[in-house]
């Protein structure tokens, strides 16, 4: 019976289904935008944290580390408290919208991207930056080169951030509500179909989710791969 379900799911993926593709597209939008926001804020912050010494740095980094393992459902709860009708931002009517899901997923991805980018910069030999300065680099030139040296780790940060939010279900369910045609994404749809006993559909949706996640990771991995530079 499981094999039959699997083959039916494969057929389903190949032939297509408008509803599934709409869910897939919303998944890419929500997780993609959340990752982009996290990268836009988290990457520079992580880099700055790595390059700057100040009192309390270790304490801040301990919170970042703590945030990397933050339960998604708790993130969803905190966003819900902000956005629901009687919350401080209740008048914006964002609850059960894709925007609420983006906010929740951003909250989940941000510490991961900050933490990984911090580690990426710290893993570059600190003497390299001094070497650049000693050769006459301005501060921004030395920092930029250091970021280039750490690009493998920084791209890993983006991959990790996207992977975490595209796979999470708790926060999306809590703030999105899994509303058909509005806030249903691949993870919440999978949970729902399993709950209904529609294993073929659940498998098909999971296969689509895996395909999307792998496509994004494959693209980023190619970017991460070292290019040979030649003298021109």
């Amino acid at each position: 019976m499981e094999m039959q379900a699997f083959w039916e799911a494969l057929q389903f993926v190949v032939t297509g289904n408008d509803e599934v593709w709409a869910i897939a597209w919303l998944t890419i939008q929500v997780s993609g935008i959340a990752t982009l926001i996290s990268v836009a804020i988290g990457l520079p912050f992580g880099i700055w944290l790595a390059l700057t010494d100040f009192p309390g740095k270790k304490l801040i980094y301990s919170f970042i580390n703590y945030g990397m393992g933050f339960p998604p459902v708790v993130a969803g709860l905190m966003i819900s408290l902000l956005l629901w009708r009687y919350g401080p931002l209740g008048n914006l009517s964002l609850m059960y919208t894709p925007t609420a899901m983006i906010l929740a997923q951003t909250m989940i991805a941000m510490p991961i991207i900050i933490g990984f980018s911090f580690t990426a910069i710290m893993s570059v030999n600190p003497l390299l930056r001094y070497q650049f300065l000693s050769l006459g680099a301005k501060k921004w030139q030395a920092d930029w080169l250091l970021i280039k040296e750490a690009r493998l780790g920084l791209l890993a940060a983006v991959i990790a951030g996207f992977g975490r939010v595209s796979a999470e279900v708790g926060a999306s369910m809590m703030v999105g509500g899994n509303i058909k045609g509005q806030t249903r994404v691949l993870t919440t749809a999978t949970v729902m179909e399993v709950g209904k006993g529609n294993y073929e559909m659940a498998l098909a949706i999971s296969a689509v989710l895996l395909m999307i996640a792998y496509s994004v990771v494959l693209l980023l991995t190619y970017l991460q791969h070292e290019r040979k530079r030649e003298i021109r």
Partner: protein
Amino acid sequence: MKEAILKMDHLQVQREGRQVLQIDHFQLKRGELLAIVGSNGAGKSTFLQTVNGLQKFSGKISLFGETMQDDNRTRLRRRMSMVFQETILQSGSVAETIGIGLTFREMKKIEILEKVEKVSTVLRCNHLLKRQSNTLSGGEKQRIGIARALITKPELLLLDEPFAALDLRIRREMITKIRAIAQKEAMSVILVTHDFAEALAFADRAIVIEQGKIVQDASPQYIMYHPVNEVLARLVGIENILSCQLQIQENTYAVQLQNGAVLPYKNLSKEAVSKCCIPADICIFANEIEKQKHGDWFPFVATCNEIRPSKNGYELTIDWQKQQLKLYFSRQKKECFAVNQEIEFALNLAELHLI
């Protein structure tokens, strides 16, 4: 008279509450080749890093006539180059790595490539230009690191043990080349080295740093034969350091060694001495001609305990009244000695050094 391009006054560097460098006064002239020697942790690398503006300090540093401050460090650094003890190259091709200093100065790519070709040809590493930096051996990396420092034609070159990973032939070649470049371009160079032979081969002047302070400042040859203390004596390779007592009788001085031998001594500069350094190149009386030639030297007889080949001849361990000494002789003297043989030696008293 050459102007001083580097001056230090009342310089202090602290690290984690500990004073690691304290220089009261120091000057380096344009075109001067200086070696810094000292034991591990003495503050040699900190000295270079401070000159390069990479360390916080109190006191005053003047470079090229300008006092170093926070807002002019980059401008001053662009007139210097530094090669670190640990060679770290950025990722990319060797050509890009060598030219990085010129990239910071926003020079055109075509000009950078020309200069990269030129400096890599001089340093004989142009065959590496298309390789990736992370594929180089340790020795190749050090050569590229030196090329990277020289390409910007610095007025002051700071070298922190740059030859450690190079084999002897390449090391000698690099020393010769850098000296030649320095003399041609009137470039001042400060070389930190553990190998006193490098200091002798490279520099006209040497300073010895111990516990963050300059304890001696002279030519390398002078330091080698007149080290200021026992630590430095061992650092420069003096092996025969004997405990001694100074005897003062009327207007004459004598040094009594721990084996009882009493040596007349004329050039006394201080009375608080406890050790006597005996050079390893003292004379064997091989024949009557040599005896006459060195008649004013101090003769003594010792037993040869061990003969071992060394780089330029032989190393002898002799027993002189139960005091072991290590001496070196050229290959031509091989027939003059054998193990367990009593041999006549002569010591040039003018070469004795008391610390």
